[in-house]
């Protein structure tokens, strides 16, 4: 994200993360940081992305969780709904302490409402019971 000043206005440039294209989206902000104009996005997802990014930047956290009594020691997990960007490393750290019991399936909810923020940590792979 880059910001440049243009008189009373500011122009910020973000790379949209919604799809692999990574459009460079430019937003013109007014004196009260109100959004005046959005350009550079090649589809309308870019608008929603930038609006969210300005208001409350969110990201997906992909990680893995320890499995007890499974054929493998770890199950992949993620936050299907993006979470507050500033808290990524905190959830990452806490997830290191977590453990689930095998069998684990795709879609199993590991953490339902992390810190009351509606953030879910969900299994994205399966680990059968064994070994």
């Amino acid at each position, binding site marked *: 994200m880059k910001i440049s000043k243009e008189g009373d206005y500011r122009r910020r440039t973000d790379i949209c993360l919604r799809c692999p294209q990574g459009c460079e989206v430019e937003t013109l902000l007014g004196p009260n940081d109100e959004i005046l104009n959005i350009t550079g996005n090649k589809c309308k997802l870019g608008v929603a992305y930038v609006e969210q990014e300005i208001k409350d930047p969110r990201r997906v956290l992909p990680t*893995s969780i*320890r499995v007890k009594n499974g054929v493998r*020691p*770890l199950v992949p997990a993620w936050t299907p709904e993006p979470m507050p960007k500033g808290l990524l490393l905190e959830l990452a750290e806490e997830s*290191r*302490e977590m453990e689930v019991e095998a069998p684990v399936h795709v879609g199993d909810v590991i953490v339902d409402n992390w810190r009351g923020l509606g953030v879910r940590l969900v299994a994205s792979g399966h680990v059968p019971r064994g070994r």
Partner: protein
Amino acid sequence: MNKVKKFDVVIIGAGVIGSMVARELSRYKLSVAVLEKEVDVGMGQSSSNSAIIHSGHDPEPGTMKARMNVRGNELWYKIVPELDIPLEKTGALIVAVGPEEQAGLYPLLEQGQKNGVSGLEILSREDVLSLEPHLTGDVTGALSTPTAGIVDAFQGVLGPAENAAMNGVEFILNAEVQGVVVEDGTLKAVETSQGPVEATWFINAAGIHSDEILHMVGDHPDFHISARRGEYFVFDSSAFRVSNVIFPMPSEKGKGILVTTTTHGNTMIGPNSNVIEDKEDHSVTESGMSEILDGARRLVPMISPRHVISTFAGLRATGNYKPPGHGKDFLLEVSKSVKGLITLAGVESPGYVSAPAIAEYVAEMLRGEGVVLEEKPDWNPKRSRIPRFKDMSHDERKEIIRENPAYGRIVCRCEEVTEGEVLQAIHSPIPATTYDAIKRRTWLGTGRCQGSFDYPRTMEILARELGMSMTEITKKGPGSVFLYRRTKEGVV
């Protein structure tokens, strides 16, 4: 309290020299041990060299180098069938480019004949190019030395070492000699990282550290070994091949940058020659890589860095011993300043080919000192290496998997190395306990993917067989662990 180990003969160093000496002495009714500071045999010069059994045309006549080279060459061909060591008598060509070099071929021929090398002849340009079509068109002629050959350098160490172990020699690994006990002018014992070891006779075969052993006992204070680095490139076997070992004309620096095929079927070029400070620094340098590419291209212009699959460096133990009237030579002697020590120092090229001859000479020196060498009636000269799944026919493969399912699981895809072979390497007379030790014995990880596929599988097998955790498995001994911790634990 630890019982002090005591032997008739203790050999310091398990490189090709130490291992051949061990095998030779294992014939006799003696208690013999080998002390090796690394976690495996042959981790020094012996496995990082040109892997050539030289003919003996190159050393200065009248030196130990010449005598040992020619006798060693003869002995290698006798020993390899007994020890199942891959060795091919390819012959070598010392190639001349231009009239000056061409003129140099004749004195080289004479020198070889003086050293007792057989079969030498000078070939014409046409003959040379028909033998080796990849050679530069500028070649004017070559000296052909048909007794030269290529060997599997590590098997050349492991073969005699395993055979010695099978015949009762004790190999003490991870045992670095750190001090000596000299009493009444006799070397009684050495202090090692595994405790003290006593012996009647010590054989100093410590390679690049052989000068340090001498200085510990106060012998030859002016003798010094410097580390002279030689770098190599290994090419994909599909790139190109040569039938002979190809040398340039020799210079003061040595035999020069050569082009050879290995017993494994790859092509190899190198070595260059640069003295370095650090005896433990095995890094390959950028300038070194350019140097050997340029040198090799002089002989074979088509050589391209595109096909390189691996690079390595070896450190020669270059000593400064010069016998009266000659240039630098091996220092092979019964010590004159301390009793009970035989020194085999400054053994760089042609050290490898000389190894069996040096071993023979050690027995001679011991006899000369009154040591009785009584042959064991049950001495077994034979040793076999791990059979390679890759070389087996379809039916042989089917059979070996049926007999032992561990052979049904591939560990290294590129070289087709199976779990059965890895297990054999771990449970052999000189056990492989590190990744590199398994690699040396089985060729795993040496192909196109260079370990990317086999790392995790090999580590798991080692951990399981040795009862260690994955985080304890090393690449080449203490200090070289692969993995620091489990994914969720022990965050620093």
